[in-house]
């Protein structure tokens, strides 16, 4: 068994009865153990390289449980300061759960439990006394379905700055709102409609509004949970362009079902399968030359 505080560079060994810190784990019998064996028959996972240069977020041996369900198994992953990393994998593989661990959105889910260690810029985000409010101001999140508040476009973007007290006066707030909308490529379209409800925009505009709302708080990381799955191809293309632009300033973790999208926007790709991180690598490498059989199966369309 591995010492949870010392991570081997090559990754950790996943075994059927679960590795990691035995003191922190409660369920040792898992209905998925047979599948887990299948995953690990290849040998040690994850293959590829979970490490990166200048890591900003470090997740070590993260396990997540919803009641009796073991949703994330011993995931270790580093994310750099300004990179786009795509999380791919079949439905229910734990990608979404994993990014919800990063901004502690699982806190408000009853019976959800997270073990392991996640640091942001060297600080443990599950540390006692750390307010998730501060964390979430630094790590923004964009959801699968556009979820603008039933308020005006302006108030949607101004909501975050207002609650955090980011603007000293109205002029500064106007600046933030306009800047964020500009950054999200939405300003031109909604300049004259700032007082109209955000819910009346088109789907793609709504999602860009949500991105504008997120960057108005000045986060350092943006988590995106399948941000284009509810959008048409044209709106998707616009969001993908936007992600490209944002990548200059933010670390972006994007969960996606679409391998094309992962190939287009991300520098690195992490493949999840049944709650385990199977393979992490440069995007080019993983799509041209996957190391793990499961990754290959998924990429070639054998697992859907």
């Amino acid at each position, binding site marked *: 068994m591995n010492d949870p505080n010392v991570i081997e560079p090559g990754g950790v060994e996943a075994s059927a009865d679960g590795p990691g810190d035995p003191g922190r784990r409660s369920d040792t019998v898992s209905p998925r153990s047979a599948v887990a064996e299948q995953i690990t028959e290849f040998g040690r996972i994850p293959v590829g390289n979970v490490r990166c240069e200048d890591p900003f977020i470090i997740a070590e041996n993260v396990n997540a449980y919803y009641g009796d369900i073991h949703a994330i198994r011993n995931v270790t992953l580093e994310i750099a300061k300004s990179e786009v990393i795509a999380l791919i994998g079949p439905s229910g593989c734990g990608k979404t759960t994993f990014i919800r661990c990063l901004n502690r959105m699982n806190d408000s889910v009853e019976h959800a439990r997270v073990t392991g260690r996640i640091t942001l810029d060297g600080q443990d985000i599950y540390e006692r006394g750390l*307010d998730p409010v501060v964390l979430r*101001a*630094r790590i923004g999140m964009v959801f699968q379905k556009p979820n603008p508040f039933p308020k005006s476009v302006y108030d949607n973007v101004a909501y975050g700055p207002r*609650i955090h*007290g*980011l603007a000293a006066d109205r002029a500064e707030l106007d600046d933030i709102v306009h800047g964020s909308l500009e950054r999200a490529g939405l300003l031109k379209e909604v300049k004259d409609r700032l007082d109209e409800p955000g819910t009346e925009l088109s789907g793609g505009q709504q999602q860009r509004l949500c991105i504008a709302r997120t960057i108005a708080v*000045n986060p350092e990381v943006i988590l995106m949970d399948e941000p284009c799955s509810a959008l048409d191809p044209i709106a998707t293309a616009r969001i993908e362009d936007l992600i490209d632009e944002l990548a200059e*300033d933010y670390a972006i973790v994007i969960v996606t079902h679409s391998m094309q999208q992962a190939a287009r926007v991300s520098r690195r790709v992490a493949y999840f399968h049944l709650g385990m991180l199977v393979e992490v690598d440069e995007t080019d490498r993983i799509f041209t030359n996957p190391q793990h059989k499961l990754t290959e199966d998924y990429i070639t369309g054998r697992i859907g």
Partner: protein
Amino acid sequence: MSSVDRQQRSRTARRRVRASLARRRRRERLFRAAGLLATAAGLAFLGMFFASLIAKGASAFVQTHVLLDVETPVAALIDPVDPVGQADPIDLIDPVDPDALVNDSLRELFPLVTSRNDRRQLARLLSIDAGESVRRALVAAGAEAGTRLSIWVPAAATVDMLSKGQLDPDVEERLRPLSDVQIAWVAQLKGEGRLKKRFNSALFTNGDSREPELAGIRGALMGSFYMLLVTMALAFPIGVAAAVYLEEFAPRNRWSAPFGRLIEVNINNLAAVPSIVFGLLGLAVFIDWLALPRSAPLVGGLVLSLLTLPVIIIASRAAIQSVSPSIREAALALGASRMQMVFHHILPQALPGVLTGTIIGMSRALGETAPLLMIGMVAFIVDIPGGFTDPATALPVQIYLWADTPEPAFAERTSAAILVLLGFLLVMNLAAVVIRQRMENKV
């Protein structure tokens, strides 16, 4: 925007977020505490409510009785009308005034009390019904002449209150209903073991009375029973039939859609119309126009039917809606007519929901008071109603009447009547819960 610039802004943002934290955490705590307080206040009220009712009402289930020794009168045996003793014993004892027997017994117990005034005061310690209890006890015992019987007779309400601690003997004499000497007599009786609290059966066997120790809820219970019978017989079939029609047969084309909306709005609105307005309807239509008798459970039941009908219709419609459409389609595909589909397949499936709604409607009807006041069910009625047109009152109305009585001894009886009413409601609601759970388990 340069990367340095962005980092700068990000740092500023972080600083401002931190600066706002203390205030926001305080507000969060306050908000949460307010929510907790509100919930606790609601629950605390509920607790206080039941605690005070039980504290006040529990004592009404017992009644202070006094033990009298009564000698069976010889007079009873030499009744000239029936020398061979064929007649009912009640007739035999009638020639003897049972009140006189009570007085004799009291004289025996208190030989030193001789003055006329004192003797009257002494007699007031017992309920005016004491003679009647003695007579009943003699009849029940078979009354052989000359035997001595010990009989528990109900004490007067004032004595009852004194022995239950509801009457402060330290108050100035002229301000309390019992004089010093009467209190002394009560103490003497108690010392001799002749004063005891026994189960207050009168509460459940008697009708209303002006005397607290004789007042019971039997009449009101029977009134409520007859009323609910009428309500059940009318509101249940009509409500279910209406729900079936609205869900399964009402035409749903463009022309009738506004009409359907109107019925929908009408039923929802009817469920929220103040109950007293239904009373006005009952008064104008049933009493004035149709000349049905006042104070009758029949009219009360009619009014309550109209009142509970919307509740039952709404619940039944919801239950019918929740039956899976596949059952509908399967039945129709087998060639069943719509009517057969409804009566053979949908209604049996919807029945638990329909019953739950009906029970909830009935429990609302049981607790309803205001409309009954309008149709004259507030009269002081001693007799226990024996049918649908006898003058009657209802349990909640009885509570209202007793609560309005200035006599302090009625306060505990009111609480007791409320406990009985709440007991019935509890049973009905538990039944509804059980049915609902069974239904959920089945699905």
